[in-house]
């Protein structure tokens, strides 16, 4: 739950929100006390405020100053709450960022019981593959039977990645399920940074990516390329 732009609100607005939220002594508190009280009230649920969200999108779908409790959306007749899990075993990999992915899995109740009874330990295996699907490398993450998701790193662009859930009983491994492959690409400039040293190339490609304050747009890969370029230039200057 959040309170939007708290520092910019008038005393009256703060008091009205405090009243709406049933803050004790709302009508006698000072401005500082109102802010402190409201922040404390909202922080109980979530320590974020909208000030942490960048861009104009922070005003999207905002028509109140508080995150109103919308307890009046009626469910349709006959529907049931979402289950903890479904009756199957599966694993999925979704790319979050260019080198981070969210992986989640589920185990069927039967499979879960079998693993529990056998005392199996679980491994999340991240496999890196070449473009023609040859295994290049892999690393394991120990997970517990109660885990259902993880964030995994995909450290090298230009490769395919897949994750498998593996059980280990008496040092014997058995693959439970494997995700589809996720392909990452390597940019042309990351392998040819020297090309960007040509003024015309740099201007053509990067002039639309540099903000008014002179920084490149906040994209990790682009920032890495610019840093690589800067490093190359400073080494050249040193030489």
């Amino acid at each position, binding site marked *: 739950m959040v309170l939007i*732009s708290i520092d910019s609100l008038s005393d009256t607005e703060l008091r009205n929100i405090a009243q709406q939220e049933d803050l004790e002594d709302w009508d006698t508190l000072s401005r500082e006390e109102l802010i402190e009280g409201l922040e404390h009230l909202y922080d109980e649920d979530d320590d974020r405020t909208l000030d942490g969200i960048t861009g*104009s999108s922070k005003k999207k779908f905002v028509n109140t100053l508080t995150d109103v409790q919308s307890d009046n959306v009626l469910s*349709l007749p006959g529907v*049931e709450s979402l289950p903890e899990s479904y009756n199957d075993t599966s694993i999925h990999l979704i790319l*979050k*960022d260019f080198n981070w992915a969210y992986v989640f899995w*589920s185990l069927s109740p039967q499979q879960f019981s079998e693993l529990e009874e056998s005392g199996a330990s679980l491994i999340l295996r991240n496999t890196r593959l070449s473009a023609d699907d040859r295994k290049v490398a892999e690393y394991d993450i120990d997970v517990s039977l109660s885990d259902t998701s993880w964030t995994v790193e995909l450290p090298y662009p230009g490769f395919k990645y897949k994750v498998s859930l593996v059980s280990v009983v008496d040092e014997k491994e058995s693959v439970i399920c494997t995700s589809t492959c996720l392909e990452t690409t390597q940019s042309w400039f990351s392998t040819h940074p020297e090309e960007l040293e040509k003024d015309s190339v740099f201007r053509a490609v990067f002039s639309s990516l540099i903000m008014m304050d002179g920084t490149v747009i906040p994209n990790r890969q682009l920032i890495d390329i610019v840093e690589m370029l800067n490093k190359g230039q400073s080494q050249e200057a040193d030489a």
Partner: protein
Amino acid sequence: MMKSRINFIFNAHMPFVRHPEYPKFLEEDWLYEVMNESYLPLLRMMFKLKDDKVPFRLTFSLSPTLCSMLSDDLLNERFCTYLDEHIELGDKEIARLSGDSQRCALATYYRDELIANRTFYNEYCHGRILNAFNKLSNDGYLELITTTATHSYLPVFKDYPIAVNAQIETGVLEHSRNFDKMSEGFWLPECGYYPGLENYLKRHNIRWVSLASHALALSPDRPERGAYSPVRCPNGLYCFIRDERFCSLVWSDTEGYPTDTDYRDFYRDIGFDLPMDYIRPYVHEPEVRSFTGYKYCAVTGKTAEKSVYDRAKAEAKAMAHARNFLYNVSCRTRSMLDVLDMEPVYTVSFDAELFGHWWFEGVKWLDDLIRLVAADDEFELITPVDFISSKTDVQTLRPALSSWGVGGYSSVWVDGSTNAKYYRHIFKAIERMTELAERFPAQKSLKQRFLNQAARETLLLMASDWPFIIHNQTNAEYAVKRLEGHIQNVNLVYDNMCKNAVNTEWLVKAEKRDNLFKNLDYNIMNGSHLEEPSPIYTAEF
């Protein structure tokens, strides 16, 4: 002289929010606010330009969920009530502020704008805003395009080609139902692109999309002209690359024009400032304060002591910012003369709701800018189809995975802490819907309706809005309930169909509430559907 061509693309979208079960609903106001503060003022501005014989070319994407709501009788009726109530509030404000000339003038201005919107809505649009957009398209001012059915962010659904196709196909079909001309372009929600997506777009004869700038800069191929020229995917789809620098002039919350201290403050509103007894008829039950649109403060700065909003000062600033935008464009073109071998195309795309609703003076800024462009040979407004029709040679290149979200990828919609946990349910619902479509093809009567409704619910649960709102924690509880509700609905149909049953009570209520995409055929979710030719048409690029 090298001409600067500016390609403005506006993405108009609202999630499907419709609650006939309540007389008034807080989140329905999202729609009424943007109708009143963005869509109608933008349309009035464009019709005025037309009347003044000022030429212009702009592109608008109108999402299928937005179009469904703008065509809905109940929501249109409620919008009229919204306008009437806020005009009444304006009258009260004018009386209340009679001793405060500055605020009273502002209240009068807001009230008069509401009246002008009501007149335009009834007399020009005949109660249907889409009519006015269609007219401007037919008259050659606008290129109208569509987007995914429910503004679904497609990169996360890469492993579900049937669902990706259903989102695109429904978007294209809905567009052809709502407008006279077919959609030749396609707005990728959040500029979300993954390699291979172009194949689904080509299937429906889409000719162009707009991509984030790093789609080009991080391509595995060497980009030749940067964002100054569109490129083509190997399958022929044109990609217009967003110019981040020019977009940030308008979009940035730290350096963008809307942050100017003379502009109107978005957050300060009498809905939170006046006693509940006064404001009660215009907010929500039970005594939930919300924005009314009557706002009297200027941005001023990060302080509680705000200046009174000065409309004349703000309008002068909007004109200055329009000139500044063109000055920046002009400087860039001149600085690139030795690099470019063609007249540059600057693609600048925004959410349409930025103009008027979030940035109150945005409509005035756009109006000023269009008039300045019309009077100056150095600039030209174009749409993507204008460029494509010029048959200019462009580079063929493979764009990289990208979005316009923070960081440039998917971490807003799959954030690992608040919204990622829903994907196990979302993916399962898609799998279940696909299974149902394949196990029960060509059903008739009640089961057909049951399955069609499940397909609607599947599209709705794929909307990018729910994970976005959950991530931002604004009205998050509503988004959670909506998302969970759509998943539960698909699960109900699945469980019923597996028992060869139909829950008619659920069906009637679901059809009444989630009544969009009336022509949707659930067989769109059958895997074999992708092997058939597109129902759109199959002309070559």
